[in-house]
């Protein structure tokens, strides 16, 4: 009797490949498939896909300058990716990293423009603080109605991105406009003390911010009770409520922290690379972050290489432009990667379900 029933209880057979390897394989397959699809599109347009891809690779990683430019673009990508990773892990679909980056940049710029003569040791930390705060507050605008009345955060965070862009317009055409710039829409340049120090070449201190933030986010998610709560809320809201976790508070904290990271990205952009406020502060880093976070499977460590890869893709696209191939190919490849990886994921999930069902059926059949 005991033996017969124990047969039902034997654990499901181990999958031949560990799940995390499967996850990586699905992603690599998605990237390869995306390159193939885009190769066909390039061919149809009359370009040689292999040459185009080779140009892209050189433009992204082919020289010291290329590598520096790629790392430079990886900074905001890493920070915004960490931000959305936090909220996605909590089951909150914060699509507003772009806007949070923008407001963070404006908050930091406000200090730089109004107190340009402060010493760097005061000004830069102040700008960091305001960048974090600006992003956090902008993220709280949709977070509060989400936490208290359950308003859908996808729509609100997305739409606030456009509001943030309009705020930039308002400022650069209005009170922040550079009086010496003949009505060009940008602010005066930052003073030297408001500029982040360079690490090497064009790569500024923001890279250290991004790597430090990676460590902090990884530690917070993996090694604190709060991180455990966040992961539980995302994986099973019912279980979070059942365990008595402070669900409302965690929504607010996760969104604010996410916004702060994107705000820091904005601060690093204006203080480390652009040195002023202008239209088009970000070429869509906040949106690419969503794709990167997804590809990195919400793992902060994995986000680092993926962000660098995407920065390379962006630079590669610019390099292509010189050979008359439209840079839009970058966004096509990004979109194709996301689409194909998501498709691969759901396919994998289906295979796993079928495997589990078959295993259970076998176990039950054996016992009957």
């Amino acid at each position, binding site marked *: 009797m005991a033996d017969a029933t124990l047969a*039902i*209880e*034997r*654990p499901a057979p181990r999958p031949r490949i560990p799940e995390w390897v499967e996850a990586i394989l699905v992603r690599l397959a998605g990237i390869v498939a995306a390159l193939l699809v885009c190769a066909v599109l390039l061919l149809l347009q009359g370009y040689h896909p292999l040459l185009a891809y080779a140009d892209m690779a050189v433009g992204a990683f082919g020289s010291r300058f290329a590598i520096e430019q790629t790392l430079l673009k990886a900074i905001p990508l890493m920070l915004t990716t960490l931000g959305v990773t936090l909220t996605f892990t909590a089951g909150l679909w914060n699509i507003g990293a772009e806007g949070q980056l923008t407001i963070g940049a404006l908050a930091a710029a406000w200090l730089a423009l109004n107190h340009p003569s402060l010493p760097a040791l005061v000004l830069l930390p102040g700008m960091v603080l305001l960048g974090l705060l600006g992003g956090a507050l902008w993220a709280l605008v949709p977070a509060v109605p989400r936490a208290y009345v359950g308003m859908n955060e996808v729509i609100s965070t997305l739409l606030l991105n456009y509001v943030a862009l309009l705020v930039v317009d308002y400022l650069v055409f209005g009170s922040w406009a550079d009086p010496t710039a003949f009505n060009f829409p940008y602010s005066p340049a930052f003073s030297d003390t408001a500029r982040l120090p360079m690490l090497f070449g064009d790569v500024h201190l923001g890279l250290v911010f991004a790597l430090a933030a990676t460590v902090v986010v990884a530690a917070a998610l993996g090694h604190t009770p709060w991180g455990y709560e966040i992961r539980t809320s995302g994986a*099973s809201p*019912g279980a979070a409520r059942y365990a*008595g976790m402070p669900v409302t508070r965690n929504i607010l904290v996760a969104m604010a922290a996410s916004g702060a990271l994107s705000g820091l990205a904005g601060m690093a952009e204006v203080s480390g690379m652009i040195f002023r406020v202008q239209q088009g502060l970000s070429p869509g880093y906040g949106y690419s972050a969503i794709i990167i976070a997804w590809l990195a499977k919400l793992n902060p460590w994995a986000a680092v290489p993926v962000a660098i890869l995407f920065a390379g893709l962006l630079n590669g696209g610019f390099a292509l432009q010189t050979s008359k191939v439209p840079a839009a190919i970058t966004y096509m490849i990004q979109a194709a990667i996301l689409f194909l990886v998501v498709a691969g994921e759901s396919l994998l999930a289906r295979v796993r379900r079928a495997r589990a*069902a078959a295993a*259970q*059926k076998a176990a039950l059949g054996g016992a009957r």
Partner: protein
Amino acid sequence: MADARPPALVELRGIVKVFPGALANAGIDLAIYPGEVLALLGENGAGKTTLMNILSGLYRPDEGEIRVVGERVVLRSPRDAIERGIGMVHQHFRLVERFTVAENVLLGSHTPRFRLSPGQVLEHVRALGARHEIALDPRAYVGDLSVGERQRVEILKVLYRGSRVLIFDEPTAVLAPPEVDSLFAGIRRIVGEGRAVVFISHKLDEVLRIATRIVVLRHGRVAGAMPRAEATPGKLATLMVGREIPSRPRVAAARGSLRLRVEDVAARGERGYLAVDGASLTVHSGEIVGVAGVAGNGQAELAETIAGIRAPLRGRVWLDEHDVTTRPAREIRERGLAFIPEDRHRQGLVPAFNVVENAILTCYARAPISRGGLLRRRPARTHARRLVEAFQIQASLETPVRALSGGNQQRLLVAREAAQEPKVLVALHPTAGLDVASTEAVHRILLELRARGVAVLLVSEHLDEVLALSDRVLVMYRGRIVHERPASHADVDEIGLYMTGVGEPP
């Protein structure tokens, strides 16, 4: 007798359906004749819904055959079933609120394939309603209709598709009494036209009012069948809950001090109705109080209210002399309440997490697992390993819980809650869907806690389980405790009547 009847509209023969971990239908034979209201009676989990999902094309049986008017058929989808004249009136309506009645009736139907002529459709739906005396404005938006009216739309939908067998899945669960009367009048008209109605329910009184023939299911088998004229509440209740005499190889309760007191609690359910309506009970240290009742009578909501997960509308809950009403769930836990929820996949466990992360779900915030603001891996693993070893859970610590069998999942959940050293344990259907070995393991844990002086509130719809484990038996019906007896004086027939609402004083 069979010769006197017209041929059956639908026949099911030897239907077997196996789900992972459960045998839902274990060889069921059933025939449905024109002009009859066939009531399918049984506790939740008896296999009624599975059987009807097979008949309506949602599931395919693992064994057995379906015959429609004598011809053997294979139903691959609900559409197949509809084409054979079998229609289902779902318990949870499948209507589009922003569409009109006419549009909803038309939805998914084949008839006008290419061109929609609004006038014609309206006229058709109006005529259909008139013919069946179903009063509905075809132009009204479904979102504006009452629950009873929406149900009429569902019925109209099924009739529009020309169904000859209409399956009603617990149609009265959402209705107020006057609406029940008009539903029954409608059902009588439908069978008067030579159609057949299958009426799924676990409410004895309603079955006795409307059915012409009654089939009782229990544990996936036909426990008994009889014409309405031969049925009595006692007979049906006994067939439903079974007659196994539970064995109780244990010592009498060493009942101690009062641990849990619930007074006049009322709470709303998920869809806003009053699920708990003035429930009161007490549980003492060292006793198991069993709450019997058919699922859906407010047990889950009552348990969640006690655990602080659901806010009560009124009433009080005391834990060890502390009024914990409306206190946060975390605080109630800290005061010594452990809770085994009904749904281990959505509440009790996080399927995507591994065994370690699930083992700490209700103690992660306390030392030694959380210390100095950090979540410590090593004590968490130690805790998980202790649970796995002590409660014989067949799993490695790194396995995601979704990959475990249902029995091992539930063992992990029950073990975790038992290991909290609780003063009070609320266990909601703790053995639902488990195999024999895991059921016994869970029972052993509950009895052990009782021996250690824990006050256990056990909610179960298996009367045998309640009788086997409890020191006192309560019956919950429509949000209230309607009956209480010491287990030693419990009468199965009497409890069965209370469970199905017949025993309730008028």
